[in-house]
């Protein structure tokens, strides 16, 4: 296997970065769909207004959601231990996300087929759940990862999980969940402000500024919590970065401020939380007033916030609160050298193609979404 052009350590690092790219890609591309879903009953009040928002999202949300599907597939392929432990550990939370996400495709497609107001109100709330609930739970999950997850691994690497669904709802995790909701609602509002006109755009702008301000405060709060209250995890043995992926070969301890260690060692990493805070601050000031600046600000904020979580945890992917030594790290939870290489080649070939045709589709669908533009299309939702 030594004949592969990239060594195992490099590939693991590249796949850690690609995991971040996929999660950020999902949060930017599908995140605004989720945010708009969460805003739907509030920013849009009449049926015509709601149809405006639904048809704004309608042509592109299916492609956007593939970022999530691909994220799941890529974690399976590149970080199988992470996929196995986290998806089964967070079982009921995952089921809740799935039930919420199931409501989205059918909500978009079915809502417009019957004119009855009760029918449409039903699907409006289904779309609200489909946007709000995943946004919240994804954030809660990230919060729990920073807190440590109560899982164990036996000698055959079979995972076990000692936590409960309600055990996920710890205060820090709830703050993380709210950061996620605020950031995606602000992002959704920025897209609404850019693509619609009139009262919907104005209301979305107002909600978006509120969400960005709340996100700023909550993200700062979470950061201070991590810096001063939350113990972090530290690997205390030397990890073989080229070694086989087996999480049983190391020792780990908890240390106060452990999640800050990377920032002390590499001060440039502070750029990530600064970007998150700065983006939210600019969004608070500009969202709905200068549409493009607002959208750029929320996009950068999402990038900064997700990068902050990843950089704080590095090299951990999933720390175990039950048995810290079996925590999953970048160096012991990846796929084999060969699989990481094959997956990298596939990604380098196909991801640029995906980005190119996605950009083309957005170009074709550009321009404001108005009742008149909706009326022209018999396929409109």
């Amino acid at each position, binding site marked *: 296997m030594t004949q592969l052009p990239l060594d195992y350590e490099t590939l693991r690092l590249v796949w850690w970065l690609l995991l971040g790219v996929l999660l950020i890609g999902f949060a930017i591309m599908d995140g605004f769909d989720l945010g708009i879903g969460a805003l739907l009953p509030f920013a849009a009040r009449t049926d015509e207004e709601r149809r405006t928002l639904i048809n704004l999202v309608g042509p592109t949300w*299916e492609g956007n959601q593939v970022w999530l599907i691909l994220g799941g597939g890529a974690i*399976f392929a590149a970080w199988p231990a992470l996929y196995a432990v986290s998806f089964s550990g967070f079982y009921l939370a995952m089921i809740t996300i799935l039930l919420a996400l199931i409501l989205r495709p059918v909500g978009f497609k*079915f809502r417009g087929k019957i004119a009855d107001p009760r029918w449409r109100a039903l699907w409006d709330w289904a779309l609200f759940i489909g946007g709000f609930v995943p946004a919240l739970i994804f954030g809660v999950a990230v919060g729990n990862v920073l807190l440590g997850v109560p899982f164990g691994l036996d000698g055959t690497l079979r*995972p076990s999980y000692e936590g409960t669904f309600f055990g996920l709802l710890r205060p820090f995790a709830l703050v993380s969940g709210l950061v996620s909701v605020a950031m995606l609602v602000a992002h959704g509002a920025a897209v609404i402000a850019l693509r619609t006109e009139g009262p919907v755009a104005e209301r979305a702008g107002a909600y978006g500024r509120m969400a960005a301000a709340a996100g700023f405060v909550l993200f700062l709060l979470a950061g201070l919590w991590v810096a001063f209250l939350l113990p972090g995890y530290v690997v205390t043995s030397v990890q073989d970065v080229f070694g*086989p992926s087996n999480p049983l070969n190391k020792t780990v301890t908890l240390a106060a401020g452990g999640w800050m260690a990377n920032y002390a060692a590499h001060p440039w990493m502070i750029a990530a939380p600064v970007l998150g805070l700065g983006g939210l601050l600019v969004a608070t000031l500009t969202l709905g007033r200068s549409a493009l600046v607002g959208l750029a600000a929320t996009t950068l904020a999402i990038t900064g916030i997700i990068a902050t979580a990843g950089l704080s945890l590095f090299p951990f992917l999933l720390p175990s609160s039950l048995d810290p030594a079996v925590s999953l790290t970048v160096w012991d939870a990846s796929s084999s050298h060969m*699989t990481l290489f094959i997956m990298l080649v596939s990604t380098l070939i196909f991801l640029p193609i995906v980005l190119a045709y996605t950009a083309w589709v957005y170009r074709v669908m550009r321009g404001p979404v108005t009742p008149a533009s909706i009326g022209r299309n018999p396929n409109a939702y």
Partner: protein
Amino acid sequence: MIDFTVVDLARLQFAATALYHFLFVPLTLGLSFMMAIMESVYVMTGRPVWRRMTLFWGTLFGINFAMGVATGIVMEFQFGMNWSYYSHYVGDVFGAPLAIEGLMAFFLEATFIGLFFFGWDRLSKVGHLIVTWLTAFGANFSALWILVANGWMQNPVGARFNPDTMRMEVTNFAEVIFNPVAQAKFVHTVSAGYTTGAMFVMAISAFYLLRGRHVDLAKRSMAVAASFGLASALSVVVLGDESGYVATEHQRMKIAAVEAMWETEPAPAGLTLFALPGKDGNAYEVKIPWILGLITTRSLNTEVPGIRPLVEHAETRIRSGMQAAADLEAIKADPKNQAAREAFAANWKDLGYGLLLKRYRDDVQNATPEEIRKAALDTVPDVAVLFWSFRIMVAMGLYMIGFFALALVLSTLHRLRQTPAFLKLAFFSLPVPWIAIESGWLVAEYGRQPWAIEGVLPTFYAASGLSVVDLAISLGFFVTLYTALLGVMVYLMVKTIKAGPASYTLLEGLQGSSRFPEAAAANPSR
């Protein structure tokens, strides 16, 4: 220890969600190509009726596609949620085709499906046609990668067990992609999907012709469906995935079970037309000589092994697997034990058979002869279910060949409207392809039991350590939500069909009349 109630519930949930997802996928595969064919005719001839057809079938496609997407997300996540040991054990191999499916196929399909619906007034005729074809190709590439993953579950080539990471790892990815079982399954499954799409179009068009409504649209749709359906139905049967069945040991067990053939017969073996299979032999059977041997081995003198000899062989492999498990323990105790590593390298392929004993005891290397015998008998799938699902599938397949041949004759002679008996038959044949594909799923996947990955990982050993309460909650939610959504979907489909395609005329003359001048300028053909 493993909680077998949780395993059974997880299996029930997987089967229910997969069978349900598989109600929508074949129709997506078939309808997308038929829409692309119809739109191609429109672009070539310029006749508006063909665009109306594309739009009308597209609306039904959209309702079906939404359900496929909704239920597909569950499939992508369920491996990790309910089958966490499976995910750890084979993620290195099995995860890659799933991820590539997302990258190469589902992105394509899902990105262009939006433009299919929303791009009519923003794209040129040819531009929109390309979008429709890309959507159809995306759907079919999806099927390819999913079946590469599934084919590996049936025939795990190109990988080996790594004792340092306690899992299967890729050694040759080309073998995984060009796995003969995967390739046979791909052709068989997409052809079944095309047949399903064709039957859907036939049945609904027949309904219109019987009522004398939308005759132009219905006649042309039937002509397309008849030829597309006949070609597909023939390819399902001729390129049936029996050709892949000889590839591996458990595939042979599947054939033996499908034929309820307990003993090896002298070649070429006879085909069992009818039997009453029990737990340990058939109460009654009717055989046609020679046929089975010819179909499965394509030769006159190759034997098709029976169930009992295959059980004997499994017993040998279980004994070898016990040794492999013992060697693995030795490696875990001392990673530098070279003798154990060499011994393990020689017989790791039987480790999976050793794991079958985990049902009876944890320290498999100390299993008793009775336990070994029980584990060997566990390799026999449910013969009666396989025997009958296979026959139902084949009967439906043969029926559809006859049906589409007749349809093609009547359509070519322009006698469809004068033959109401055939139109009624077409309408009532609507469920036939679904009965066939769901039976086919049972043969392939229920027939794979007791293995999650054939010969490598027993199903019961692959499940997550969840509680019965977890499973009861998730299964309850899925059943409730899925049932409700199916009801809504059928209601909306019926409503759309009853309303008919008339409303689409409002789009006439709109195509390309984009309010974006530069888009119009880019398409000077209009």
